[in-house]
């Protein structure tokens, strides 16, 4: 564990330098331990692939105080990253209408569109953390043969629920945003609802699977949601 003072109000706790489930367990272990303290002086926790950024009230705590707090937590208990993690199945319709870049992914990887869909929906993915924007999950576990670079020019607006590939990453756009990922499908389920508790469909540490559905099922699920 390495601690870097990131600002007058935050420290970055680093556990390694590669994407690895064991390192991730340490990150989420510390995240859960700090969450459990429910200390109002700690304002925000940002887990990443190999680190946890701890943001605190600088009038109440110093970087040294937070470091001491973290060290006492680590000596008191072993990391328990998997507490409450779930397996979440996300239905995805891979129709061409929802996957305008499926043909590009197919051309880049040399796989048929059916094969791209089969591989994408048969893997299991781990939610390393949520970041970027509300409910956006950074997923690890996409088969290497599916790696495809992002679009040269991002789209001005990507529809919420769109499922895309960017390099070795895959993910779901929880809300409509600009985006440069290659779109291969769309889920009818809501990934982010600020008024729900919890507001996000998946949590850090969850395991995600994509279940292919057809257009009729997609419409059905959309109606159920409405």
């Amino acid at each position, binding site marked *: 564990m390495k601690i870097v003072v*990131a600002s007058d109000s935050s420290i970055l706790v680093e556990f390694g330098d590669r*994407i690895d489930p064991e390192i991730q367990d340490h990150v989420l272990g510390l995240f859960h331990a700090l969450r459990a303290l429910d200390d109002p002086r700690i304002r925000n926790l940002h887990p*990443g692939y190999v680190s946890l950024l701890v943001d605190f009230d600088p009038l109440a705590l110093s970087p040294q105080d937070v470091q001491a707090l973290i060290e006492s937590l680590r000596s008191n208990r072993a990391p328990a990253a998997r507490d409450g993690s779930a397996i979440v199945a996300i239905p995805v319709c891979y129709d061409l209408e929802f996957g305008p870049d499926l043909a590009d992914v197919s051309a880049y990887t040399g796989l048929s569109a059916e094969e791209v869909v089969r591989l994408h929906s048969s893997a299991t993915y781990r939610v390393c953390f949520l970041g970027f924007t509300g409910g956006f999950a950074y997923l690890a576990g996409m088969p290497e043969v599916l790696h495809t670079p992002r679009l040269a020019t991002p789209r001005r607006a990507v529809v919420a629920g769109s499922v895309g590939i960017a390099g070795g990453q895959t993910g779901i756009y*929880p809300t409509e945003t600009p985006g440069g990922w290659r779109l291969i499908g769309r889920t009818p389920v809501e990934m982010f609802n600020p008024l729900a508790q919890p507001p*996000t469909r998946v949590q850090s540490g969850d395991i995600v699977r994509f279940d292919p559905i057809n257009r009729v099922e997609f419409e059905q699920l959309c109606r159920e949601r409405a």
Partner: protein
Amino acid sequence: MPGAGVSIRVVKPGLFTSVQDRGRFGYAHLGISPCGAADAVSLRIANLLVGNDEYAAALEMTLLGATVEFDEPTLVAISGANCECKVGSNQIAPNCPVEIPAGSMLECGSTTDGARCYLAVQGALDVPAVMGSASTDSRGRFGGYQGRRLQAGDILSVRHVNQPRIRPLRTGALKEEMRSRGAIRVTSGAQRDWFRNETFANFLANSYAVSEQSDRAGLRLKGDMVSARETRQLLTDGIPLGAIQVPQDGQPIILFVDQQTTGGYPKIANVIAADMHRIGQLRPRDEVRFAEVSIPEAIEALRAQERWLKVIWQD
């Protein structure tokens, strides 16, 4: 009609007017930005002037202010960047509690010496709290007024107060502190060691222009290129408020209140908490310089600011 409460109708929305309070904390692990007032010091002053809780929900107006109509007599205060505000032909003084007569319109013009001003209304704006905050999250489209900036025709309600109080400022109290034009103070960023000492020294010696493509999520700077000596990709990590990240093009970006919670570019420096409100007042084409301070100096500057915020009031 007692108890019906005041409502405010937006006649002209201005360039970018949104409801903001202290911000939304405790949800960064879900990807949710803090949002909140870009210049929290001015938000606090405006609220205290009309007797509100210092971090109550108020209107944040950007570059060009809004025109709003009040249906009941309402006590308001405007703080932040200088901006010509009028009710009919009467000028409204900033940093001073002012009663707006029923049925009249408050017109706020362009800001002249900063980017943002705050309109606080006695009783505070009544919008539903989402995840503990009234702040508008424009990227996530929630919070504030329907999750978006204001449009003409929007009607906001104001909380009713039973015992209105006002708190005037000492004359001239704001001048020296709020008009400081010196370098923005920074501490080392989380990836400071990805940059050579010489690069960091140049970063501090140079001045940068704030690009037109700047908003509450990030201020893009234009100037001499800053290059990391590390060429490897950073594994996406958490971004503190006010982090200065350097993408491949070498043009730094100050990540601000509506920022993404995680990112993949190295962070060379970080704006100190005491200077965060000054970032909220930067306008496109402003020149900025940075000066390095230690963490104890940064904390002392913040404590001094808090002390100052206590002594500016008439008792």
